[in-house]
């Protein structure tokens, strides 16, 4: 929890941009939450359970440090790990640590993928760290995270 507070205070102020025909909830002084609201800590535990989690440089996370548009942030994950029958990357989870629902996607692989590589685009509500959790077939998880500074926000 200490680290999260540090991140919160270290984050720069975000300029809220009104999109045509849409008003972000904060302008009306109501805080809208996702129906799937889940904090980072809750999502982390849900995904990892009691399994071991290690920081790993085998997981490459490519995400712009200053995304041009918080509605469309490209994320690319590449894991340097075999994809063999009994030893493979089973899942790749992308968590947006500060979105109302921190889960963005859970990608489940099989050895047929042959490479643990994944690309998609996510929405970030504000500047935050994005964390990738990689689940291996042996039960351990690898993790990596990157900070982003979002000036044009989403959801």
């Amino acid at each position, binding site marked *: 929890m200490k680290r999260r507070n540090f991140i919160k205070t270290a984050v720069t102020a975000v300029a809220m941009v*009104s999109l*045509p*025909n*849409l*008003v*972000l*909830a904060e302008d*009306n002084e109501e805080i*809208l*939450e*996702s*129906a*799937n609201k889940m904090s980072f800590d809750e999502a982390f535990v849900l995904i990892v359970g009691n399994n071991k989690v290690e920081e790993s440089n085998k997981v490459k996370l490519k995400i712009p440090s200053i995304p041009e548009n918080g*509605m*469309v*942030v490209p994320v690319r994950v590449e894991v340097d790990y075999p994809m063999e029958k009994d030893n493979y990357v089973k899942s790749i989870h992308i968590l*947006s640590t500060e*979105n*109302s*629902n921190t*889960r*963005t*996607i*859970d*990608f*489940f*692989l*099989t050895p*047929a*993928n*042959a*490479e*643990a*590589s*994944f*690309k*998609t*685009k*996510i*929405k*970030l509500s504000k500047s935050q760290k994005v964390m990738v959790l990689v689940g291996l077939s042996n039960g351990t998880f690898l993790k990596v995270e990157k900070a982003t500074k979002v000036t044009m926000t*989403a*959801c």
Partner: protein
Amino acid sequence: MAKIRRSKIKVKPKKFKVGDIISIRYIVQHPMHTGMVKDKETKKIIPAEYITDISFSFEGEEFSKMKVWESISADPSFELKYKVTGVGEIKVHSIDNLGNETLKTKQLKPQK
């Protein structure tokens, strides 16, 4: 009323052989409404409408699946890898929180 959404499966490279690893990119038309945004004109919340699950299979056998949440960008795209095992059909099925489904197929024709 079921909504028909356009989707595409793009395979790279264009020419490949059995045993090669190809890149599959799935793109689907979808607003991915989070249910947390108000329409400026109506002042009403745009109801949540987003893809929840996607399944990728080859000749009827699932090789990848995704649990998708509302934070994925509108008109989403997903790119993954796949090792070609022979001639056959790739099928991608997606469904959203309202039960609307999209199905797209693509024939894989590896070179000899």
